């Protein structure tokens, strides 16, 4: 299971994020959820996300989100 699923669950409890290909279009995340998700990712994964990277493309689905987090971890040497 992706380590991101519990973080997503903390933003929208009970929502099944594993099947959706587009969290925003499918109504699983709104713009406020994206902001709180960014804050949660920073806190729980100890990364600092550039505001310019908070785009719908990066928060589209589990795959894009995992790739996004991976890039930050690599850049931060984690």
């Amino acid at each position, binding site marked *: 299971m992706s380590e991101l699923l519990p973080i997503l669950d903390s*933003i929208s409890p009970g929502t099944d994020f594993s099947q959706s290909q587009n969290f925003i279009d499918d*109504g699983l995340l709104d713009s*406020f959820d994206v902001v*709180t998700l960014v*804050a949660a990712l920073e806190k729980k994964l100890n990364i600092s996300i*550039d*505001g*310019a990277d*908070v785009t719908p493309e990066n928060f589209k689905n589990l795959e894009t989100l995992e790739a996004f987090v991976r890039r930050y971890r690599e850049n931060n040497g984690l």
Partner: protein
Amino acid sequence: MDFKFNNKKVSGVLTVVPKNTVKFLDEIDNYGFSKEKCLNLQEVMGFNERRIVKGDECGSDLALYGMEYLIEKGLLNKEDIGALILITQTPDHFMPPTSSILHGKLGLGKQVLCFDINQGCTGYVYGLLQAFLLLESSCNGKIVLINCDTLSRRACQYDRNIFPIIGDAGAITIIENSEEENEISLNLNTDGSRSDWLKIPAGGFRKPSNDETREIKELADGNRRSEDDFYMNGAGIFTFTQTDVPRSIKQFFETSSIGIDHVDYFMFHQPNRFMLGKLAKKLNVSPDKMPSNVVEKFGNSSSASTPLVICYNLDKKLIKNRFKICIAGFGVGLSWGVTTLEMGPLDFCEWIEK
């Protein structure tokens, strides 16, 4: 567009906020948010309490209250006023200019120049620019800059993108010529291709208000508002503040008379805590130098949020001290602007309630 000025100074700032306080947690049923989501938003965005007017009170009523306060306290002499510039998106009427209405209510002299500018979150920089330009070509008196808005009256109470952040306020800034050296740099930008990102679609001449535009409708994203209400493309505006705005500010500091490392305070328009935190990080500025505490206490009051952040955070300090200040605004238009100047000691710097 870039500008340079000298021998100008801000000599006083006063902000008036409504006494009426509303709390985010009392409104959550309007938005359909869970309690947990609201608590998350409180922490991340700074949604807490806001000051909004009651009934049909206008921005000019807040400004009038502030002007009378300054005159009664002897902090401003009516005879010293050369011009009154009023920046608002919520005028009393389409016509006459709200500045003329205030001129009449205050009993100002016939030689006093009055005009309105329709501007929002960049309006403080626009107002300072107009004041500096007037002072450049006239020595007759002080410039009274008024920034006032009551956008809560044009925000749908069910619109979760707008209503939790909106606040009302009126601010008065006095600008005058000065003997002292004070090089001021200022830069303003516009991108009209994104002008529909912050908009009140109906109620003007393009689309007059009618029964249909007044009807509150549920939109595809579950949000609710009418076409007579204030609309914001929240995601687009967030990206704008994290790309265009910091890029311009960094470019501005390449030629500004004050280097970014020498700025004492960054007094920016106050959209929300998260956005300002990210902006501070992008500019490599300590959050201590860029206060983001206005939204949680007063709400976002458009162009008046910038003088409010100054009055709320530096009121006592600016009476006694002189600081290098960077002021920035960004929003409707889209427009964005930045200026650096030295401020203080001021004749007055405070916020009051009406």
